[in-house]
C-alpha cells in the first residue's frame, strides 16, 4: 500500500475548478428538467388525451433506456443527422435535462394526485376556476409531497453527472482521470473528487432538510 497525497497538491486548483464546471451544467440541467417536467406533469393530469399520451410515452422512453445512451445519441448522433456540431456542455444539459424531466414529471404528477380529491371538489363547489384552484389550493399542498422527492432527484442527477466525462466534458470526474493519467496514480485524485462529490451531495441534502422543515411549520 503506497498512498502519496502530496503529489496531487499542484493539481488541486485544477480539480476544484471541476466543482464549478459540474455545478454549472447540473444547475442548468435541473432547471431545464424542472420546467419540462412541470409541463409534462400538467399534460399528465390534464384532460387532453393526445397530450397525456405524449407525456406518458416520453416518460416511458426516457426512463426505459440508459442515460449514457441518451447522452451518446445527443452528442454523437445529432451532429450526424443535423450537421450541427453540438458542444459537450449543451449535450450534457440536454441529455440530463430531458432525462430528468421524465422523473420530475412523475414526481409532480404523483404529488398532485396524492392531494385529497375532496380538496378539488370543495374548491369547485365554491365556484373557484381550475387555474386558481391549482395554484392556490392544490399545488401548495402537493408541494409537501413533491419537494422531498424532487430533492432526491436533484441529488441523483448531481451524482450521475459524472457520466459526462464519457463525452470529454471536463467535469470533476474527467479532471480526476486527467490527473490520474498525468501522475500514473489514480487512487488519490479519484478519492479526492469522491470527497468533493460527497460534499456537494451533503450540501444539497442539507438544503432539502431545511426546506422540508420550513414546510412542516405550517402543519
Amino acid at each position, binding site marked *: 500500500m503506497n498512498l502519496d497525497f502530496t503529489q496531487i497538491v499542484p493539481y488541486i486548483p485544477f480539480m476544484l475548478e471541476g466543482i464549478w464546471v459540474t455545478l454549472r451544467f447540473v444547475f442548468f440541467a435541473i432547471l431545464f428538467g424542472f420546467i419540462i417536467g412541470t409541463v409534462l406533469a400538467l399534460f399528465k393530469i390534464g384532460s387532453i388525451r393526445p397530450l397525456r399520451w405524449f407525456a406518458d410515452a416520453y416518460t416511458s422512453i426516457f426512463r426505459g433506456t440508459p442515460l449514457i445512451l441518451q447522452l451518446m445519441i445527443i452528442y454523437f448522433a445529432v451532429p450526424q443527422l443535423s450537421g450541427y456540431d453540438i458542444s459537450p456542455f449543451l449535450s450534457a444539459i440536454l441529455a440530463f435535462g430531458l432525462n430528468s424531466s421524465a422523473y420530475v414529471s412523475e414526481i409532480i404528477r404523483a404529488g398532485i394526485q396524492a392531494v*385529497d380529491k375532496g380538496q378539488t*371538489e370543495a374548491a*369547485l*363547489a*365554491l365556484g*373557484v376556476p381550475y387555474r*386558481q384552484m391549482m395554484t392556490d*389550493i392544490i399545488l*401548495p399542498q402537493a408541494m409537501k409531497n413533491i419537494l422531498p422527492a424532487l430533492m432526491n432527484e436533484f441529488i441523483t442527477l448531481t451524482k450521475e453527472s459524472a457520466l459526462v466525462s464519457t463525452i470529454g466534458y471536463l467535469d470533476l470526474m474527467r479532471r480526476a482521470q486527467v490527473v490520474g493519467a498525468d501522475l500514473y496514480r489514480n487512487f488519490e485524485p479519484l478519492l479526492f473528487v469522491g470527497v468533493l462529490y460527497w460534499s456537494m451531495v451533503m450540501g444539497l441534502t442539507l438544503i432539502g432538510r431545511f426546506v422540508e422543515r420550513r414546510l412542516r411549520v*405550517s402543519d
Partner: protein
Amino acid sequence: MIKVENLTKKFGNNEVLSNISTEIKKGEVVSIIGPSGSGKSTFLRCMNLLEKPTNGKIYINDKDLTDPKTNIMQVREQIGMVFQHFHLFPHLSVLDNLTYAPMKVKKMSKAAAQEKALDLLEKVGLSDKADAYPNSLSGGQKQRVAIARALAMEPELMLFDEPTSALDPEMVKEVLDVMKDLAHSGMTMAVVTHEMGFAREVADRVLFLDHGVLVEDGEPNSFFDAPKTERAATFLEKIL
C-alpha cells in the same frame, strides 16, 4: 328555487339515479334519506354539477343547469355544499378558508370578506378560532367552519351530504344546532342525513331514495309514522 325533471344518472351501464323529478321551494328544508348506495350523494352532487346528469333537466331559478351554455361556475357560486369529511383547506387558516372564495370568485375586498367571515364565525360559535389552522380543530368545529365557509359565498341554496356522519357522537349536536339555526333563518336546504330526529323536526319534506328511485316524497311526520311504501317501511324498521 330548484326543480329537477326526469333526472337520470349512469356511471357506465350502472344506472344510479332513475328518472327523478321533484322541486325544492325557496326557504324549504328537504331531507334526503335512503339506504347506502341508493344514490343520495349522487343526487345531491348533480344539483351543483359535481356530477354531470346523463339525462333530464335541473333548473335553478328557472335557469337550466344542464344547458351547455350555462356558466357552471356562476351557478356554483349560488350553491353552497357541505361534505361529510369537511374538506377544509388545510394550508389556510380558518379565516382564510372563509375569505378565499369570496375574494377570488366574487372579487370581494379583503376587508369586506373578513368582516363577513368574522360575522359568520360568531354565528357558528367559533370567533376565537379565526387564526387557527383546520388541523387543530375537532371534527365538530371543522364542520361548523365548513358550513361558515359555504355561507360566506352567500348562497341561495345549501347542500349537505351527511354532515354529521364522520363526527363523534358528542359533536353531532353542535353541528345540527347550527343547521337548525340556518333552517330557521329561511335558508333553502337539501340535507342527506341519517339523523332521523333532524329530518322529522327540521325538515319540511322528506325524500326517500332506494336503488336510485325516488320512492317517497312527502311531509316528515306522515312519512315516519305511516310510510306509504313497503320499501320505506322496511328501511325505517331497520334504522329506528
